[in-house]
Structure formats: C-alpha cells, structure tokens
C-alpha cells in the first residue's frame, strides 16, 4: 500500500472528521468553533479534489480483520445501548446480528474462501454523494455552531453536552463518506451501523422525551441493519463474494432484496417512516444534515447502486418501484394535513426519497438520471429549508406554519432565503422540477406508477403553495427591518441559497456534464435498452431552464422599471374588510397592528367593539385523518414488502 494522493484524500475524507470530532469533544467552546471550521474547509477541499481525480480503487491490507473488529465493536455498542434502555427487541436483533457476524468469522476460519475485491473505490455515483456530504455537510456544521449556541441556553437539564453533540455531528461526516466509498460490504455495513449510532445519539440530544424517539429510530434502523448483515452473510455463503462488484456480477437476487429492505428502513420509506417523523424532535442542524441531506440518502444510494444489475428480475424491480411510488404519493397526501413545519419537511423528504427509489426501480437511463438529479437538488434545497425553519423557530418561538405570517418584515433575509428554498422545491426553472419532469417522462410506459407520480406531484404543489403563501404575508412598510443574524448561520443560509440559485440556473449544464455521462457509463453495454429509451433520454436536453430564468428576469425588470420607483405611499390602501377596518391609518410603523399579531384581521363589530378574525389554511383534516391514512398505507406497504420477499423466494 503506497501513499498516493488518492489514498491520502480517502483517508482525509473518512478519518479526518472523526479526529476533528474527538478534538471538538475535548476542546472548550472557542477552540471548538475553530476546529469545526478547519474541519469543514479540509473536508470540502478533499471532497472537491477527489471528485476531480479520475476513478480509482483502494485496497487496505488486513482489512478483513479490521472491518470485522469494527463491525463487532459497533454492534456491541448498540447491544450495550439496548441493554441500558431495556429495549428487548433491539437487544434481540443486535444479538442476531452479532451471531451472523460470528458465523461469518467461523466460516472464514474454516477455510471458506471468498473472492477478494478492492475495499474502497470512487466512481461517478460515489462522487456525487461525496460532493454532497463534503460541501453541504460542512455548511450545515458551520450553521450548527451558531444555532447550538442559543439552543443550549434553552436546553433542558437532561440535554447532552455540546462536546458530545459535535463529536457525533462531525464524525458522522466521515462515516458517511466511508459509506459511499465502500465497495467491500463488510466496511459498508460497519459505516451503515455507525451512521445509525450517530443518528441515535443526535436525536436524543435534548434528553427526556426525545429519548423515546431516538429509541424508535434505533429500532427501525437496527431492523435494517439486521437485514443487511443477513444479506451479506447469504452473499458470502452462497456466492462466495463480499463486495458490490461481486453482488452485481453474481446477480444474486436474495441478498439484493435484503439490502433493499435495509435501504428502505434507512430512507424511511413506507412502512418504516415513523422514525423520521419522530426524529424531527432533534435540533434543526441534525434534521438538516442527517435526516434530509445525507444519511437518508444512503438508503437511496444503496438502491441506485444495486438495481442496475438486476434488470433480469423485472418483477422484483416492479415491486421496488411500486413501494417508491406509493411512498411518494402517500407522504405527499399526509404532508397536506400537517401544520408543524418540520413534519411537513419530513414528509416531503420521505416523499422525494420514495420518488428516487421508484426511479431507480424503473431501470431506464432517463429514470436513473432522474433519480440522480433528485438526490442532488433535493439535498441542497431541503438542507436549506431546514436551516431556515430552525432560524425562524428561534426567532418567533414556534414551529407552526400558522405563526409564520409577517416574518417578511421582521427577518427579510431569512424569509427571502426560505422563499428561494421553497420555490426551488416545486417551481420551474429550478432543479427539482427538472428531476420531476424527467421522472414523469420516464414512467410513461407504466400507467400505475404514472398515476401515483401525477397525484403525488399535484399534492406537492398544494402543500408547498400553502406554506409559501403564509410565509410572505405582510403589510406595507416603507422600509425593511435590518435583521441581526448570527454570522455563522447567516453564512450558511446565504451560501446554500446561492447554491440553489446557481444549480438551478445551471441545471441543464449539470445534467449534460455530470448526470448524462454517469448514466451512459452505468448503462454501457446494455443491449436490452431500446433506441427509443435512449432518444427520450437525449431529448431531456430540451428543458428550457435558461429561458425560464430569462422570463423571471424580464418580469423583475418590468416590475423595477414600472413600479418600484413609482410606487408612492399615497398609493397604499387598506385591505377590503367591508369598510370596517379597525386600523385608522394605512399602516403603522410597528410590526403588528393588534394584540394577536399579524395572524388576524381586526375589524369593528357590533357596538363598535374591535374583534379579531382569523383565516387559517386548509389542512383537509376532515377528509384525511393522519392516523387512519398512515395505518392503511402501512398495511399496504407491508403487504408489498412481503410480496418483495416472496419474489426473492425468501418466503
């Protein structure tokens, strides 16, 4: 093993965050911020450099032993946690995992040979995820510096220390990088379990009530871990290989299905979505990093990596697609009923992950490219939105959408950034719409999936528009308020917002330069892909992103020329409340007009009494009861999972 620059970068990407995490744990506050910023810069630089380099592989001598020891250690830690919190289910599953790992060790000792392959590798799919983890991740870490300062002031006494928080937060970046670069399945499952552990510790940060949610997350993710270890064991025994390369070459259906089930738990698809909803109780940087931008993408990454090799099992692929599509539509339906901002974001994340899995299951080049595009654009947009919601929550003290009216005047910068983020989730010309467009075009030949996707995207428009509308309600103010924002948080928000705008502007360029070549490489040599499918893929270049931006620019220009400079204060009028407005002047210099704030309209009622009326948004709670719909969706999803296992001849 020689020290090449590739190996060095690899080591930096995986080990440096862990080291810096220990430093952050041990150091006092000032030094901690410095070390986090230093770590961010190093990781980002390393990520970009390794992306520019050509694809390479890396083999670690003695990795078998190291990986096994680490795996045993991690499962042991989870076992210990299960014993302390007295959750027998997790205990049983961890014991089963441990048993399987021990069985593997025994097999290796008794001469069962396994074909070796390289341990770590970078290929284009890996590079995309490395970029996301190494660029978006550190930005969120910098945000966390500012956010946790004030969070810790209001934290309950059961909260863990900031040192522990940042240890797991920063070390997670290393684990995630290792997960996407691992080719050897032993290393992969070690990193998988490590991210589960990080997630557990970070969700339970505030202690008390959040421990229950953390336990639930641990339970479902350990179930996934069990499925993964079982799959790896099967692969080792039956096909005598233990790498992704070997899995795809051997076309082993059973391990693939087990790995997919593990992926479903990590990505919180139906029926495993309850842990992600409970995880929203964690501090906002955790939600941004783990539960929207990176960790839950690990599951969809896994599906994207294994499905290209299994086009010979159309039934299995079809079932995977159905689960993804059902999640997409179902989570969008449930998001309509939510008024808690973080739950809306959580359901939206689940929905988009379902779409990724559905596209991966369809298996055509365009669908694959669509899945990649969703992963890229969703990571940036959703991370940005979580950061904005965190900042808004700190300012107004509430997570409810209904309380977010009138923030346009109080925090113009944050609100504009939040508006950019939300518009990027559903409007052209941003990247998410490009990916949804490609997804719809790729599901043309399967009517059932198409119907789900159409219904899902209509519902998506619904719940996002409600929220965007509420956030930018305001009255007339001659000048905007100057917003005082913590520099770390401000830096992250502005950087991500710029990222959203730039990737939106360059979405076609990204598609042509990155996603198209990756897709062509993945599907190279596939004789079963027809000409027609390739032509649809090439026609995806017709998305007129630049024209749409130009149109937006024209509208802004016309507005600036004709209205902005000419609009006078004498042109402002009161809203129409049948003449009974209670405000005597057109606007007040203070932010609110009446005691209930900007939510309500004060009008003069009988006896000249001033009453407040209030119009809320529609949540359709009479038609969609979250509990009932969740029960039905979970039931259907479990049936589909059982069908999936049956297709793989496991049941």
């Amino acid at each position, binding site marked *: 093993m020689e020290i090449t620059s590739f190996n060095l970068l690899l080591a930096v990407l995986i080990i440096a965050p862990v080291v810096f995490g220990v430093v952050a744990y041990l150091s006092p506050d000032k030094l901690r911020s410095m070390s986090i910023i230093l770590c961010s810069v190093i990781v980002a630089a390393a990520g970009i450099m390794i992306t520019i380099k050509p694809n390479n592989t890396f083999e670690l001598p003695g990795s078998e032993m190291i990986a096994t020891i680490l795996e045993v250690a991690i499962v042991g830690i989870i076992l210990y946690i299960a014993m302390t919190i007295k959750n027998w289910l997790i205990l049983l599953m961890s014991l089963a995992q441990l048993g399987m790992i021990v069985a593997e060790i025994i097999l290796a000792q008794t001469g069962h040979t396994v074909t070796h392959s390289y341990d770590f590798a970078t290929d284009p799919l890996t590079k995309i995820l490395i970029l996301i983890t190494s660029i978006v991740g550190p930005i969120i870490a910098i945000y966390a510096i500012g956010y946790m300062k004030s969070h810790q002031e209001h934290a309950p006494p059961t909260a863990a220390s900031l040192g522990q928080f940042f240890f797991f937060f920063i070390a997670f970046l290393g684990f995630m990088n290792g997960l996407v670069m691992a080719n050897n399945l032993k290393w992969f499952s070690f990193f998988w379990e490590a991210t589960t552990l990080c997630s557990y510790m970070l969700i339970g940060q505030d202690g008390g009530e959040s421990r229950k949610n953390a336990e639930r997350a641990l339970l479902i993710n350990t179930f996934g871990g069990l499925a993964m270890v079982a799959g790896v064991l099967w692969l080792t025994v039956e096909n005598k290989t233990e790498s992704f390369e070997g899995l795809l070459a051997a076309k082993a259906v059973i391990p693939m299905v087990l790995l997919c089930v593990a992926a479903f738990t990590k990505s919180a698809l139906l029926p495993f979505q309850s842990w992600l909803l409970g995880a929203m109780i964690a501090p906002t940087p955790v939600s941004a990093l783990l539960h929207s931008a990176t960790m839950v993408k690990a599951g969809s990454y896994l599906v994207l990596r294994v499905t290209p090799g299994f086009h010979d099992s159309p039934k299995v692929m079809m079932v995977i697609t159905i689960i993804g599509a059902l999640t997409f539509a179902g989570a969008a339906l449930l998001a309509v009923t939510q008024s808690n901002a973080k739950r809306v974001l959580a359901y939206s994340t689940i929905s988009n992950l379902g779409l990724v899995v559905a596209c991966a299951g369809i298996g055509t080049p365009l669908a694959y490219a669509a899945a990649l595009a969703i992963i890229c654009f969703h990571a940036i947009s959703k991370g940005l939105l979580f950061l904005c919601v965190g900042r808004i929550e700190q300012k107004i003290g509430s997570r409810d959408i209904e309380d977010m*009216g009138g923030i346009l005047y109080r925090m113009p910068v944050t609100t504009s950034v939040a508006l950019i983020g939300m518009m990027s989730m559903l409007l052209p010309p941003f990247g998410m719409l490009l990916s949804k467009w490609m997804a719809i075009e790729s599901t043309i030949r399967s009517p059932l999936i198409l119907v789900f996707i*159409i219904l899902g995207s209509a519902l998506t428009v619904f719940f996002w528009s409600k929220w965007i509308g509420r956030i930018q309600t305001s009255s007339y103010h001659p000048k905007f308020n100057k917003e005082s924002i913590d520099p770390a948080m401000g830096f992250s928000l502005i950087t991500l917002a710029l990222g959203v705008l730039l990737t939106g502007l360059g979405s076609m360029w990204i598609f042509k330069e990155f996603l198209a070549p990756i897709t062509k490489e993945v599907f190279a040599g596939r004789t079963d892909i027809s000409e027609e499918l390739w032509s649809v893929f090439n026609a995806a270049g017709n998305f*007129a992103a630049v024209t749409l931006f130009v*149109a937006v620019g024209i509208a802004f220009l016309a507005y600036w020329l004709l209205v902005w400079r000419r609009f006078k204060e004498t042109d402002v009028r009161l809203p129409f409340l049948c003449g009974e407005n209670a405000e005597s002047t057109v606007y007040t210099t203070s932010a609110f007009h009446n005691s209930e704030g900007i939510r309500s309209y004060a009008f003069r009622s009988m006896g000249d009494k001033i009453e407040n009326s209030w119009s809320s948004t529609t949540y359709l709670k009479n038609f969609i009861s979250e509990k009932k719909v969740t029960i039905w969706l979970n039931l259907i999803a479990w049936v589909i999972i059982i069908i999936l296992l049956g297709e793989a001849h496991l049941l």
Partner: protein
Amino acid sequence: MIEKINITQWIIIAVSLVAAPFIGALIAGLDRKVTARMQGRKGPPVIQPFYDIIKLFSKQPVALHKLQILYAFLHLVFMMLVVVFLAMGQDLLMILFAHAFSTICLVLGGMSVRSPYSRIGSLRKIMQMLAYEPILILIIVAIYLQTDSFLAGSVMSMSKPMLWSMPLLFLSFLCAVAIKLNKSPFDVSTSHHAHQEIVKGITIEYAGPYLGIIEIAHFYETAILFFIIMMFWQTNLYIGFGLETLAFLAILILDNTFSRLTTTWMLKYMWSIPLFLSIANIIWLWSK
C-alpha cells in the same frame, strides 16, 4: 436554444404574442354577449373587454404593497411564455409547468396581502389546481403514447384527429377548462360576475393597471385553452374551429344553468369521475 430560432419562428412568436390577448378578449366579449342573449337582454358590445382594459390602465395605481404587484407581473410574463412555447412547439410538460408557475404566482400574490377574502380565494385556487392538474398531465401522456414524443408540434403528425382516440380525455379536459375559466359550478375562487361570497376572491386587492395586467393574462389563458381545444381536431382546422365553438357554447350553458358549488365537491368530483374516465382512456391507449 435561442440561437436555433430562425426568422420565421421569431415572426410566428411575435404574431402569436400580439394576437393571443386580442383573441382571448374577443372570446370573453362573446361570452358576455351570448350570456346576455341567453338571459333575454341585449348585453354589452363584443369589444367591451377592450374598453375595460383601456379604462383599467387609466386608473390610479393603488395597491396594498409592492410585492403583490411583482406577482402580477410574473403571472403575466409566464402566461406569455406559455404562448411562446406553444408557438415554438416545445415540450408539453414544460408548457404545463410554466402554466402552473403562472397560476401559482397569482395565488401567491393573493396570499401576500393581509386580506381575508384574498386569502380564501387563493386557497380555493390552489384546490382548483389540485383538481385539474392530473387530467392535464394525463392528456400529455396520451399524446406521448400515440406519437412517442413530448413535443407540441408532434400532434400535427398524427393521421387521425385526437378526438377520435381521446374522447374521454376531451370531456375531462372540458371540465378542466371550465375550472380554469372560473365558470359555475367551479367559480369558487373568483369570477367575472357580480359579488361572490368572497367578493372577487383572489383579485380583490388589485386595482387599476395591476388588475389590467391580470385581465390580460386571463385573456392569454383563454386563448391558449381554446387553441388546445381546437387542436383536438388538428387534421382539419375548420372542423377544429367548429369543435371550439361547440365547446364554447357547452361551457357557457354549463355556466348559466349551474350555480356555484363547494370546493370540496369540486375536488371530490374531479378526482372521481373525470379522473377515472381519463385513466380508462390512457389504459385503452396503452394497451393498443
């Protein structure tokens, strides 16, 4: 993409951009005239909408704040963009998304002001979008299944009129058009007639030239919708014109005989009967 357009296409784009609001205004004027005749009175002249627009632009520009005006501009620009895309025969899903952007800008403009009627009108408009959007996407899917292309120009290459292969989709599309033009029984968010229960809904806080902008965008939308109806018989545009007239009369009769029903009824209705008819049509096309 701009560099690929030659001079003929530029002329077509310019002509359609200028002609579309005129056509839309004439259709709106005819609407009022025929409605009046149906009610036994004389009604305004057919060019009344032009007088309305000119009058609106001579009024004092009042508003509640500046942001809502920006949304009115975005609404108009994107509706014009839809016309441009249609004239260039672009990807149909793109056209649909640009149209959705335009409607969402109008909705956001309504929600950006602190006015209860405006807010309720905007929420109802979103529910209208929720009701008709699946049908529009299904129409595009049906066109793809028959021509293997998403481009708008590809329908001209079909040998038979679209109405023959997509009859159920056409009926559902008529319901969608009725919703978009705010005709009873779907005029829950705003309407051209007198007081609504929410007094003009979305457009309540727009006045003078800004209301004029929204009206012009509405003319563009009318022209686009009726153009698409005409395209359902694309092999013979004269018969297409007749189809358009029949559809116009049908929507008018629907408007004058029905009274306004609730938003939830509209959602339930559109997501049951027209949606199932459309899906049936798609499955029939897919299995052919």
